[in-house]
């Protein structure tokens, strides 16, 4: 049982997609999680629900709406075309956008839990030490949730690597561009190539297992971040 060029291509593409998605999420999730952790706004509930939606929605629903919104006749599609970016569905960039939304709760929730633990008090203490809110976020809040940040990154990466439904809807199964490992696996099964399918599936299982082992082995130290994930 070994992996052929098509499988390696798909696995590498998967890794690239997961890495890009994780990078975007690590930029996007901390401020959002912080806002959710400390805001007294009445919009907190709806926004938190929106972030958590991908946990309960079939990925195809998300994919479907993204297809409509980002497609040539969708509002966002019109925008990206006007900006000269073309349309995003069926491109690698489009997959990154979709994966970011799809994996958002996996990045935001552990961070939010850890940040709620850190709380506003840290920010107040920092303020009385001549540290403004932005600097305090970088030098006080983020360092205190660094373990949750690693957890968020690993989970985002693993979750993105395992996604299928969204990619199927807006990916288009293009080798080297959008044919990630899970989609190739589907193709292999349909072509009755069980040998190759086994090898690829096993690679995915081992990878996901390694990621989760990493996260859960550190649950003591990571405390509430992982606990929040387990509550689901």
């Amino acid at each position, binding site marked *: 049982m070994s992996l052929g*060029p098509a499988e390696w291509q798909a696995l590498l593409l998967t890794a690239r997609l997961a890495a890009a998605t994780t990078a975007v999420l690590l930029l996007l999730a901390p401020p959002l999680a912080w806002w959710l952790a400390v805001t007294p706004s009445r919009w907190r509930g709806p926004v938190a629900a929106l972030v958590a939606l991908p946990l309960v929605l079939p990925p195809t629903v998300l994919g479907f709406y993204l297809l409509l919104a980002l497609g040539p006749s969708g509002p966002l599609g019109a925008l990206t075309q006007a900006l000269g970016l073309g349309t995003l569905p069926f491109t690698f960039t489009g997959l990154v956008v979709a994966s970011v939304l799809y994996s958002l709760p996996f990045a935001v929730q552990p961070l939010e839990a850890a940040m709620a633990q850190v709380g506003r008090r840290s920010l107040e203490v920092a303020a009385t030490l001549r540290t403004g809110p932005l600097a305090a976020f970088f030098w006080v809040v983020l360092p205190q949730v660094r373990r949750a940040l690693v957890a968020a990154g690993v989970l985002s990466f693993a979750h993105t690597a395992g996604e299928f439904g969204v990619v199927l809807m807006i990916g288009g199964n293009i080798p*080297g561009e959008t044919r990630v490992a899970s989609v190739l696996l589907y193709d292999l099964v349909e072509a009755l190539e069980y040998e190759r399918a086994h090898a690829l599936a096993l690679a995915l299982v081992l990878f996901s297992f390694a990621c989760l082992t990493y996260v859960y082995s550190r649950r003591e130290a990571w405390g509430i971040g992982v606990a929040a994930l387990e509550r689901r």
Partner: protein
Amino acid sequence: MARIALWMLCLLPPLAWGETARVAVAANFAATFATLADRFAATGHHRVVASPGATGKLVAQILHGAPFDLLLAADEASVDLLVARGRVRPQDRYVYAEGILVLWSADSRRSPSPELLQDPALQRVALPNPRHSPYGRAALAALGRLAPGRGDLEHLYGESVAQTLVFVERGGAPVGFVALAQVGDAGGVARGSGYLVPAAFHPPLRQTAALLERGRRNPAALAFWEFLRGAEARRVIEAAGYRRGEAG
């Protein structure tokens, strides 16, 4: 070592001296297309890569902006739709093959036949979802002719002929309707056992190729478009288990 080099080649962006065309391929034609792609690559610098799927889904993706150069559909109606929507010029289409429907069993001793469909012991038959698979619609019509009294027969729908094949192969149904090219070739059914459904029992499976907007600007797509209509491609297609399409 050679193997590693091969992987590396696949990871590289399309090489400077050749172009790549992206082809949306109906699931039933995926295996045949792989042979065609190899032969095509041997003729020049260009490459084609396949995105296999159910025809209906591929058309939906094209309508939403999927970057395909060519479509090899399982039917004619899908291309009609694309022409009507202005995505394909009327002259940029032709029937590249006519599909042959098979009632198939994974068991080589079962030898499916019209009689089998009448047997009350048979409770379930697999077929592609007629909603988005031309083979599914053909299978439904064939069932009307082969087993008119079997309203009780349970239908197990696959997403495409490819998934239908997996269902039957894995025992989800004792028999199912698939394409001949999936389970055999011009010489007949090679894997398991099957019954070739007469063409008269269903609307013809006029598998239509279309040159899409993007493909008109892509040298690789245009080259493959020519190749597909040539004598060599036609031999490959017929050998794979399709009836001859329109003359090129």
